[in-house]
């Protein structure tokens, strides 16, 4: 089975965080609609060939955050109403990603205008607005490669 | 236990092909007669013999190869870990694998023998004249030891560790110790019998040592081949040395004996003057051998001596009782003797080798009265040697079928009695005088008599010949003068058996056995009755043997007839 994302070992983020954020993105972008069944810990671990404990930790955090819900005997599902980021949280997270983007641009030697144009192009490629309810966050498309280096990387 | 059995079954199943080969080998004896083209009558025996030898060879070869590979191959190729990473006790791995090897070796031999056994109906095969049944049993017992030896050898050669050098050194040391012990035993003429229990003992000891060593290697070394080899070598060397030392100790116990260790005194010969005797008999212990000693009863001193190569002792004393000469086997396994001499009157004296050699057995040894010369008779050859230096002084060989007896008449002169056989008359005794330094003996006389139960006078000038009763004749004794060859007296009585012997003091003791009784009389050296000498009477049928005399006593041995056994009695007669 295909998880829909890959684990990047050179990423500074631990594997469980990568899983967590990837699932968040899939949920936020509407690729995993609410009440969809997600792979079990075992199956996801096997398909990613990662330690099941890592997957379990990510799922636990997602469940605690309300993104996933566990139905006894039935498996794990996307929550009916995945949580919303507060406005402050949204601003903070956007700010982090913006810094990262700007650093990448600086490394490439791009001008502010060039980087703004690139940003606009990316928006239009995604469509005017993200699918699903307004409660869902959209950050970036699920399989955009994250910058490998040349940027500050957040706390684990 | 379950683990051991699981390993056993697994290892045996792995070696199915060997058992198949054994069955095929079992069929080969049926082809042998066709190949060699023997007569139909001899075919079964040929088949049986071939089957026995093939089975032995095949099982032996299998045992070596199985022993070398069952653990050694896995260890050398890093596959022993498979077993050690399972819940299997070390002894289960060891026992299961070695047990499987032994079982396969036995099975290989059994299968190779089975077709011939069935064809022969069992009994005939087991009673094959060339191969006794007990050998089959011995071979079956030897196979596990061969397996263990193969294992030890395999480990030593395959692990490529420096301990191989240690093994060779230890083996050489143990072999050296054992060889030295055996040579000592042979030197002291110990017969290593009974052989079968000894061989069994050696085999069992070797088996135990190899068993312990293999266990140490597997249980202690596990998958570490260097450590395993070390443990094997140390255990084997330790066991080997211990056994060799035990063997040496046991041999020493058998060799370092005193007259007290004799269980029976079967030989007794006294020197003139009776200061010393030579005695000997069977030694205590499981080994069947005898030992001989010179013993001085008065002081308790004793000296150990060895016997001649031929198997019984022989000693000649000088007339003055101060020198003893006897032959000893020259070297272990040799068939020649060397003469040794001993000064009996010197305190602290030890046997001295004279460098005088003779064949074994010799036909007689005589020592001169003062112990300076020795005469050796080997069949028809007489040699006179100087005893101190071993130098040959004179030698002569007689022709024809003769028996020679030599006695010293003086320090340098020997009287020879040459017993000649003649078809017509029966024989004659030629009397020679042989001087040391002379070219050849000088003939003095010839006595027309046959050398029956002779008795020589102490001064070697008279000879009594006792002719037994044959047919209608009676037993008589004849006295001869050796210098002239003349018959001095004929002692005989009708209806009686007469025997005469010289006593050490020169008198002649005559025994007359008649139906009415036995009489003993003392005569002078020429055979004439002495005035005033007593006659001694004994019951009818008694045989009397005069032994020793002093001026007023006479020691005789009486053999009394009885219904079932003769009884002996010794008497002093006044």
């Amino acid at each position, binding site marked *: 089975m295909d998880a829909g994302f890959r684990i990047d070992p050179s990423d500074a983020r631990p594997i469980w965080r990568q899983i967590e954020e990837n699932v968040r993105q899939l949920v936020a972008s509407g690729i995993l609609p609410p009440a969809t069944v997600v792979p079990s810990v075992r199956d996801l671990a*096997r398909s990613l060939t990662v*330690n099941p404990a890592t997957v*379990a930790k990510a799922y636990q955090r997602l469940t605690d955050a309300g993104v996933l819900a566990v139905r006894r005997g039935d498996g794990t599902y996307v929550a009916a109403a995945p949580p919303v980021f507060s406005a402050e949280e949204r601003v903070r997270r956007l700010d982090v990603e913006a810094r990262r983007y700007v650093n990448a641009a600086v490394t490439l030697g791009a001008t502010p205008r060039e980087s703004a144009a690139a940003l606009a192009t990316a928006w239009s490629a995604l469509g005017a607005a993200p699918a699903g309810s307004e409660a869902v966050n959209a950050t970036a498309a699920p399989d955009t490669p994250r910058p490998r280096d040349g940027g500050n990387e957040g706390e684990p | 236990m379950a*683990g051991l059995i*699981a390993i056993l079954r697994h290892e045996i199943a792995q070696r199915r092909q060997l058992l198949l080969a054994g069955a095929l080998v079992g069929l080969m004896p049926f082809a042998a007669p066709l190949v060699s083209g023997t007569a139909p009558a001899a075919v079964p025996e040929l088949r049986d013999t071939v089957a026995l030898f093939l089975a032995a060879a095949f099982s032996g070869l299998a045992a070596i190869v199985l022993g070398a590979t069952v653990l050694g191959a896995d260890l050398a190729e890093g596959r022993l870990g*498979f077993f*050690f*990473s399972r*819940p299997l006790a070390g002894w289960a791995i060891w026992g299961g694998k070695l047990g499987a090897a032994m079982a396969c070796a036995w099975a290989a031999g059994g299968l190779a023998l089975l077709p011939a056994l069935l064809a022969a109906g069992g009994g005939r095969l087991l009673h094959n004249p060339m191969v006794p049944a007990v050998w089959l049993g011995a071979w079956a017992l030897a196979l596990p030891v061969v397996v263990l030896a193969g294992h030890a050898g395999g480990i030593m050669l395959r692990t490529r560790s420096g301990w191989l050098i240690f093994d060779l050194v230890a083996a050489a040391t143990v072999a050296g110790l054992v060889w030295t012990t055996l040579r000592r035993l042979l030197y002291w003429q110990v017969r290593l019998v009974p052989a079968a229990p000894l061989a069994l003992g050696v085999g069992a000891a070797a088996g135990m040592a190899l068993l312990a060593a293999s266990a140490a290697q597997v249980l202690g070394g*596990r998958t570490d081949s260097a450590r395993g080899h070390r443990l094997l070598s140390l255990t084997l060397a330790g066991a080997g040395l211990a056994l060799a030392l035990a063997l040496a100790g046991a041999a020493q116990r058998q060799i370092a004996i005193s007259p007290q260790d004799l269980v029976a005194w079967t030989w007794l010969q006294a020197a003139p003057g009776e200061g010393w005797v030579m005695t000997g008999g069977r030694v205590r212990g499981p080994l069947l051998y005898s030992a001989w000693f010179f013993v001085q009863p008065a002081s308790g001193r004793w000296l150990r001596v060895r016997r001649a190569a031929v198997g019984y002792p022989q000693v000649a004393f000088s007339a003055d009782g101060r020198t003893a000469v006897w032959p000893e086997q020259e070297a272990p396994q040799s068939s020649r003797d060397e003469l040794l001499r001993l000064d009996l009157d010197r305190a602290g004296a030890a046997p001295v080798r004279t460098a005088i050699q003779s064949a074994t057995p010799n036909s007689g040894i005589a020592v001169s009265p003062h112990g300076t010369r020795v005469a050796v008779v080997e069949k028809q050859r007489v040699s006179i040697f100087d005893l101190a230096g071993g130098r040959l002084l004179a030698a002569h060989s007689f022709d024809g079928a003769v028996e020679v007896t030599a006695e010293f008449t003086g320090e340098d002169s020997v009287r020879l009695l040459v017993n000649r056989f003649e078809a017509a008359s029966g024989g004659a005794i030629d009397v020679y005088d042989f001087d040391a330094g002379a070219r050849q003996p000088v003939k003095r006389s010839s006595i027309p008599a046959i050398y029956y139960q002779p008795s020589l006078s102490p001064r070697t000038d008279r000879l009594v010949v006792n002719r037994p009763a044959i047919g209608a004749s009676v037993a008589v004794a004849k006295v001869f003068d050796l210098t002239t060859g003349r018959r001095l007296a004929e002692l005989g009585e009708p209806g009686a058996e007469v025997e005469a012997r010289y006593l050490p003091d020169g008198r002649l003791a005559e025994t007359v056995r008649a139906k009415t009784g036995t009489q003993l009389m003392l005569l002078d050296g020429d055979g004439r009755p002495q005035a005033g000498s007593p006659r001694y009477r004994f019951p009818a049928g008694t045989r009397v043997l005069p032994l020793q005399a002093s001026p007023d006593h006479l020691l005789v041995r009486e053999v009394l007839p009885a219904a079932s056994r003769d009884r002996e009695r010794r008497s002093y007669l006044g």
Partner: protein
Amino acid sequence: MTTTGALAAAAAPSHLLSPTVGAAAAAAAASGAAPPLAVEAMTVRYGRTTAVDRVSLALAEGGVYALLGRNGAGKSSLVRCLLGQQRATAGFARIFGRDVWRHRAALMAEVGVVPEQPDAPPGASARRLARLCRRLYRGWDDDGFEQRLRRFAVPPELPFGRLSKGQQRHVTLALALAGGPRLLILDDPTLGLDAVARRAFFEEIVGELADRGISIFLTSHELPAVERIAERVGILDGGRLLVDEDLERLKHRLRRIRLPRAAAAGSATGEAADAALEALAPLRRETRDWGVEVVVGAYDDRRFERLRAAVAGGAATVSSLTLEEIFTALVGHDPAAAAPADAPAAAPAGRATGGSPWQV
């Protein structure tokens, strides 16, 4: 889930490359249960060569410990002692609290072993091997064994010696798992396997981790696979344990910092920058056309900010390292100096010698 627990119990991080020796063992001891695997001050000497030098480590219950090291670093000797097949010169190896050398036979009932070289008798088929092993274990899962053979496409009646390398390893793993072990010890289990077989092998391991909560100790050169599965990592170099740490923590504190040449200009900033860099415990530095690249061993965000502030233009950047890069940085000696098993005391590898990184 015990990963977080192990992380929380790790000793206070140190700047230098000293391993958090025995931390997991201490944590397990504190919790009262014997860890599935524990090595206590183990030393293995062959004559004058020291193959393993006072190594201590522990595997937590349900955890995965990966022991890394270059060839000849002493891993094989250590593993043999762990399996009770070799006697250490000093120290102990314990499985579930019991000394392995003395209680090997009983302990192996709960341990599954996949050795570096396949060691099954070459003449026996997979089925015959299963028949042998069935009698040795109390709870032998024959169905599971057959399933695995089918899944790996291994012909069950073919003699072991005639199977491909990959098939041999799969059979060995299947035999090891069918006994229902609580602990798996794997010594370079994917050596020589192709990518497909490798993935199948690790998938199987992951399945067992998920289904049974088995504890795993493995040695491997497959660093990309190890960094996905291992929770705790040990790095053996010249017989000594350089690193004994949770993987997450290791990856957090070992980073690559890039300092462009332009930032190096200006001597006024040199000293402060040097001090800030020293605080990050530099391990290796390499000079490039555009500047200097430094691998540091004690990264945290605050120290890095200090460095950025001290560097002209604030142009210092940081990135993370794969486990392979971490491994090379720690034990990749100069070829001239590579004498691993003989090195009596390997100094912490790649420690940057004195001098500012600006001086080229």
